[in-house]
């Protein structure tokens, strides 16, 4: 990897800003364009860039594949959990008005924030999982090619 000096340096500079921008898009979605879906993809792109430049193993030591697989389900559970919570409070599924007993508008703000977070977690985790799966398969392909070349 020593020959890829420029991508390494550039990635090191860019990745923090990509992740920060992902968080900005995540939590600024109420005010500007964006939201959980776009934020999840941007965040995943930062991790994927790290994996591309520094290797799959390095990326998986930061974010293990098992953790990502769990996060995939967690995001969806957070989203559906908000719906169940509003039902427990006596309303309809995903009726955020009830999340704040004093002000329905605050309940809406809270509900949107939480479900967008769930969307972001699931989308980022799914994108990273798909990439991990593809990249993890690459070694097997190379092994097979090496075996067929050797024989």
């Amino acid at each position, binding site marked *: 990897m020593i020959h890829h000096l420029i991508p390494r340096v550039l990635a090191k500079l860019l990745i923090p800003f990509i992740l920060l921008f992902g968080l900005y898009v995540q939590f600024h979605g109420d005010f500007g364009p964006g939201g959980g879906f776009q934020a999840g993809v941007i965040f995943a792109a930062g991790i994927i860039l790290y994996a591309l430049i520094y290797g799959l193993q390095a990326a998986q030591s930061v974010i293990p594949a098992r953790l990502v697989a769990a996060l*995939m389900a967690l995001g969806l559970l957070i989203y559906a959990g908000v719906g169940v919570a509003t039902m427990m409070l006596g309303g309809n599924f995903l009726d955020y008005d009830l999340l704040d007993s004093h002000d329905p508008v605050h309940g809406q703000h809270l509900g949107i924030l939480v479900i967008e977070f769930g969307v972001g977690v699931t989308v980022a985790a799914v994108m990273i999982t798909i990439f991990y799966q593809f990249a993890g398969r690459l070694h*097997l392909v190379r092994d097979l090619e090496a075996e067929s070349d050797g024989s």
Partner: protein
Amino acid sequence: MNWEALIDIMLLALLLLVAIGIVRLRNLFAVVLLAGIYSLLMALVFTLLDAVDVAFTEAAVGAGVSTILSLGTLALIDSQREKIPSRFAFTPLLLSVATGALLIWGLSGMPEVGSPDAPAQLHVAPYYIEMTPVEIDVPNIVTAVLASYRGFDTLGEVAVVFTAGVGVMALLGSIPAVYSRGRRRRQPDAERADT
């Protein structure tokens, strides 16, 4: 002619050129990159249509992640092998021309772009625009519609994304290097993981 129409025409011409390039090219690597460029151009078209949220998604997903995943697929398959040039086929050509002609004919029944009298603007859209500041109070009405008014739809979309992830895991997840803790945890050759 105003500037926006000129930009529209240029973008659409570029889209057409890129699409022809995708069909004509034999090199899969170039095709994947052109598909990314196509998505970026589409993002610009969506921006011109004032659909910034859609443009954002198109740029992030279409040009970003799907390009990376396509390149990952190319790394898995033999990307150097060129497509076999197909012979001229009359029926597909006739079908595409007929479909295209039908779509262009259907355009005459469409309302003008941005027309306030379009059927899409007359159903629930006035309610959303009127009531979002009162009921939800977030400046981005798109977020209010997606996350609150149509929260159940979005839950379904997240479930679709989740299912896609589970599907990929089910199809490719038998790879011991990534997921199993046991016998073949990871081969000790670090340089291979770096490539």
